[in-house]
């Protein structure tokens, strides 16, 4: 096992002529919390989409645990242990909260192709569902349809669903966006708790959250890597301050 869980080499992505990501070389250390920050439109989500294979790179290479995944399908990298969340909360709205978690837990069981047995064969997962719900403080919401949850709860549910797969690497795209102070505190605590067990790569605009959680920070601007280091290094960096002027630094 190497100490680098994800490495990108010369990652480039163009959208019909426009270069959104322009030669990004990232190295994410195992069991660290790594934050990706940068002004709007810097290419952070695009980098996420590239790493999680939702987009194909125009150039460059991506290594996951030393294996080349540049041509791997997104579902396949998910099965290898890299699970992402989305900038806009992604839940299964027509399903109940418990069903949302069960659909994640069901995947590693290998029962998903089975169309002849009732879903009672999945009853064994219910204990784990409740544990996860308890962890995010949502046991009371268990049987509610997910679409009707308040936004903060949706994000918490999405987080719990990601956790349900016990991923080696979690990609979180702006987990705090649209949340109130209370929710932010709760989710920050959840992430901090999980950071012991896995690697977390997160995009986040809320710099106080980044300061609290991140071991290492990469700053992206106009598709380029501007700087990298810990919070103190970054906040002292001239180029970073420059890029954020007129931008949205808090």
């Amino acid at each position, binding site marked *: 096992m190497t100490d680098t869980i994800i490495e990108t080499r010369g990652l480039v992505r163009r959208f019909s002529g426009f270069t959104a990501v322009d030669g990004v070389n990232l190295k994410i250390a195992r069991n660290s919390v790594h934050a990706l920050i940068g002004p709007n439109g810097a290419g952070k989500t695009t980098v996420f989409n590239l790493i*999680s294979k939702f987009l194909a790179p125009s150039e460059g290479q991506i290594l996951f645990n030393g294996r080349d995944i540049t041509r791997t399908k997104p579902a396949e990298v998910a099965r290898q242990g890299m*699970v992402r969340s*989305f900038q806009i909360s992604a839940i*299964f709205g027509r399903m109940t909260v418990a*069903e949302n978690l069960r659909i994640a837990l069901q*995947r590693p069981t290998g029962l*998903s192709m089975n*169309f002849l047995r009732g879903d009672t064969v999945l009853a064994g997962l219910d204990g784990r569902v409740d544990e996860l719900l308890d962890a995010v403080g949502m046991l009371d919401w268990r049987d509610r349809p997910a679409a009707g949850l308040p936004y903060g709860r949706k994000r918490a549910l999405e987080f719990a669903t990601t956790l349900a797969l016990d991923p080696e690497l979690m990609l979180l795209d702006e987990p705090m966006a649209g949340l109130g102070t209370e929710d932010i505190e709760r989710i920050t605590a959840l992430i901090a708790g999980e950071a012991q067990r896995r690697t977390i790569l997160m995009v986040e605009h809320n710099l106080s959250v980044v300061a609290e959680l991140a071991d290492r920070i990469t700053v992206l601007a106009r598709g380029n890597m501007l700087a990298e280091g810990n919070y103190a290094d970054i906040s002292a960096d001239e180029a970073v301050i420059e890029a954020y002027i007129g931008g949205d630094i808090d």
Partner: protein
Amino acid sequence: MTELLGIPPVLLFGQLLIGLINGLFYALMSMGVAIIFGMLRIGNFVHGAQYMLGAFGAWFLISLPDLFPGLGLPSLGYWWALVLVPPAVAVIGALMERVFIRRVYNLEHAYGLLLTVGMAFVIEGLFNVKFGAAGQQYGVPDLLKGGVNLGFMFLPIYRIWVIVAALVVCFGTWAVIERTRLGAYLRAATENPDLVRTFGINVPRMLMLTYAFGVGLAGLTGVMAAPIYQVSPQMGQSIIITIFAVVVIGGMGSIMGAIVSGIGLGVIEGLTKVFWPEASSTAIFICMALVLILRPQGLFGKETSAHSGADITIARRESILENGRIWIPVLAIGGLLLPYLVYPVFAMKILCFALFACAYNLIFGYVGLLAFGHAAFFGASAYGTAHLASVWGWSPEASLLGGVVLATGLGALFGWLAIRRQGLYFAMITLALAQVLVFYAVQANWTHGEDGIQSVPRGMLFGVFDLNDMMTMYFFVLAVFLIGFAFIYRLLRSPFGQVLRAIRDNEARATSLGYSTERFKLIAFTLSALLAGVAGGVKALVFQIASLADLHFMTSADALLMTLIGGVGTILGPVVGAAIVVTLQREFAEFGAWVIVVQGAAFVLCVLFLRQGVVGTLENWLGRRAERAREAGLSRRDPAE
């Protein structure tokens, strides 16, 4: 120069010329479809009927004295038609947009397609009622009569004219859209209607004019085609399926793409006629399959972004109407009583189509894929079963199994090809692939062309039950239906069914959880084909015939209509819908061609006014009533606390 590659040049160049002309027609038509899709996001299935209107318009003008004797009207020839008819068809198009199409802009793509299917049926049905299936002749105008003898072939002047005129229109349209300010607005409005609105442009009017323009092109093509082809009510229906295949090949992204692929495919089709005549009708569809394998986004298309299927299910899962534990026994009891209430043959027809519609609902309602060619599986199994039973002398259960295996194999193949594209493309691809089977069945020996396979023996089921006995046959059909229904119900509540729900809800999220969503969709599609095959095979045994009608697009449309009327994505909807549609078809059978008109009208009305279907509406009503009761109960308790 006497022979080229062993082919007489007269034949070679003659077919090349026809191919070029057809290709130009394809180009004009697919350009219209592409423009309309680009601007309105509507898959304009009625384009073929609008083309037919153009051809009939020309014929009307020239036949005015015969059509209205005594009014002293002049006979207006080709040149008049060329000037008057395209604008007239465009005006009809504008009215259609204004009255109908405008209402579905904000709905799922599927509804736009279904609406235009309905309008096509109404228009073509009405012309069929008035003029019958036979074609009308339309002469070449005097000025363009005759031809040039090139030594190796005779070149009719009218065809030269068509080539020149069509090329001018194609490139004129391209220039307008790609090179003018108007075209720039059009393209901008496609991408961002709100932005264009802020420029003070009236977007609704622009949409209407765009639609009218695309339809006008179809009308113009119809006028130009009138002297070459028979003017008949069916002329649009066969061409629209080809046009959809052309659009899938070219990709709807660019006008030039539509022109180039239209012309190229016409020429390829012409050449196939020379070198391999049997394959000529399927050449374009085979090209489509190759393009899907090698370059799924189409030759000129942009990379398709992943987006999930149509979300058109309205079922309330907790509703009592969705509870199979109640409804499977109820259906069983109802089924036992049915043959004592209506003719057993009629009851069997309902059951066969109910199973077919349930199979269709599995893919349309629960996976959200707008499959448009399920008749392929229904019909293939009907033919397979019929052949095995009558020629090979297999027992009914073995024949049925054989038919179902055939349908399932085709389902896996078609699904594998079609799943590469999303949304409207998926509909077009499944439609086109199904059409290949129709052409095949017309030509192959074992399918007996127009006659079909007749007098299929029903035989002894498991060597014990004599299916020639009406009631034995009926109970066999009922048992098959109930097993099929229960199978679907079980599937929907299985771990697999849960994944299907997740995929329909949020495909990207399901992928990020590690589900290879395409594989799940493909399995669901194949299972749906399997069940459609069961329905088709049983139908062949009941009616003792397998015919082209079983493969025809109308049969696919039947399944769709049944599902829509009953309620998409509800477990009972397809059953209710099948009962309604089969009954309607029987009631209107004596009015001949009117059946199609009625069915088309039913499509239009359902899309506009009854999108929830009968069962969905009922579920909604029950659901709301229960909610009100709960609220009332709560407010009554509150003061006591």
